């Protein structure tokens, strides 16, 4: 009875906003990459610089308090790119500062991003093992 009544999120509108904002973030990233390349960075370094800059920008916006407001509108558009990860690490850190550097920030900073790191690592180990076996046979 309750679930029948539940108003669903406006799917099409959310998808559109996510598509546009996610696209905008990627466009910004690409522009930055070209800029860094223009300034003389190697292609690989330019990509790393883009990631670092985006993470920093998202962290700064979180600290200044407008990331969450933008994310409420943009949804997955801001969540899926690397900016979402940055926000997930900075936001608990900001709140935990009242409990001190070790017991607060130190222990709470990965409260949201923790699972991504744990299972990301596990997945990469599994991938590595499979790749190693593949190389043994293929090589």
């Amino acid at each position, binding site marked *: *009875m*309750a679930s029948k*009544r*539940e*108003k*669903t*999120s406006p799917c099409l509108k959310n998808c559109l906003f996510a598509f546009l904002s996610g696209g905008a973030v990627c466009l910004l990233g690409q522009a930055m990459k070209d800029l860094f390349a223009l300034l003389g960075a190697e292609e690989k370094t330019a990509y790393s610089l883009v990631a670092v800059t985006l993470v920093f920008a998202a962290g700064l916006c*979180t*600290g200044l*308090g407008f*990331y*969450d407001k*933008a*994310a*409420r509108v943009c*949804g997955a558009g*801001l*969540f899926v790119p690397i900016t*979402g990860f940055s*926000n*997930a690490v*900075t*936001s*608990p850190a*900001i*709140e935990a500062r*009242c409990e001190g550097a070790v017991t607060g920030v130190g222990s709470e900073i990965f*409260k*949201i991003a923790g699972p991504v790191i744990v299972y990301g690592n596990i997945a990469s180990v599994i991938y590595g093992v499979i790749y190693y076996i593949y190389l043994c046979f293929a090589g």
Partner: protein
Amino acid sequence: MFDKAYISCCAAVGGALEKRGPLGSLFDITAEDSYFGMDSWEQAESEMSRLSVNMLHKKASLAEKDVDVMLGGDLLNQCTATGFAANSLPVPFLGLYNACATAAEALLLGASLVSGGHAEKAVAAVSSHFCSSERQFRFPLEYGSQRPPYSQNTVTGAGAFLLEQSGAVRVTRALIGKVTEKGITDANNMGAAMAPAAAQTLISFFELTGERPTNYDAVVTGDLGREGSALLAKLLESGGIGVKGALDDCGLIVYGPECRGVNAGGSGCGCSACVLATYFWQKLCKKEIRRMLFVGTGALLSPRTVMQKQVIPCIAHLVELESI
């Protein structure tokens, strides 16, 4: 049934969003700063609770030593907001927890103590703070999380009531609710989880007393929001109780019925406390409302039980109020 229990005075403190809501001008104190001048959200809620009790003392020209007991609670772990507020007052203190039904619980117990002659003056004080609740029950404030349209917004507010053997509003009867659940596990849809508890309490009250909803000027639930209120109306009608237009909900009053920017309305124990201490208190004093039922609704969950996918047990306490 209480012989002699009255609410003689009340005070309400609200946050910035509540100030901009339709009840904004009715609050005794409102603050633009969510921190209330403190360093953390938890301290802010405590300060808010202390402000409401201090305001109550001032309005009723009471000294701290005149208060025999303070009953109260909040949503934080170990009820620290109210406990710390009671420490800074200080008064004899009983801490309570019934989630968002704490306001009704405190009124009910305060009325029993006063009516039974165990206390001359009892203070019931309840608070909730959006930021400290988000932190405890959901995500960090700055995290870009999505909320479904049926979720509710915790009210930043504190309400305090003075119970005595005389006063403007009489607490005539009360009914302690039973804990109930109907299989809802989604902590975002607390209105739906709490509606069966409210329905159960109301149906037993009407059965026990022979009263009908039409005998009251208002039948008000605590914080069912848009979802829960609609479900409650359905549940009552299927229980044979016609309530057409008689039901109201504090969660829908505090931010206005269109709930702009807060999805399905307000929640939290400050929600029912503030709306009773401002909107309904005024109406009771002006005798626009002569008799009303105030039903506090609470979801007895914790973040752990939600993660363990347990159902959400809920409770609803009823208090009957009459203007004198």
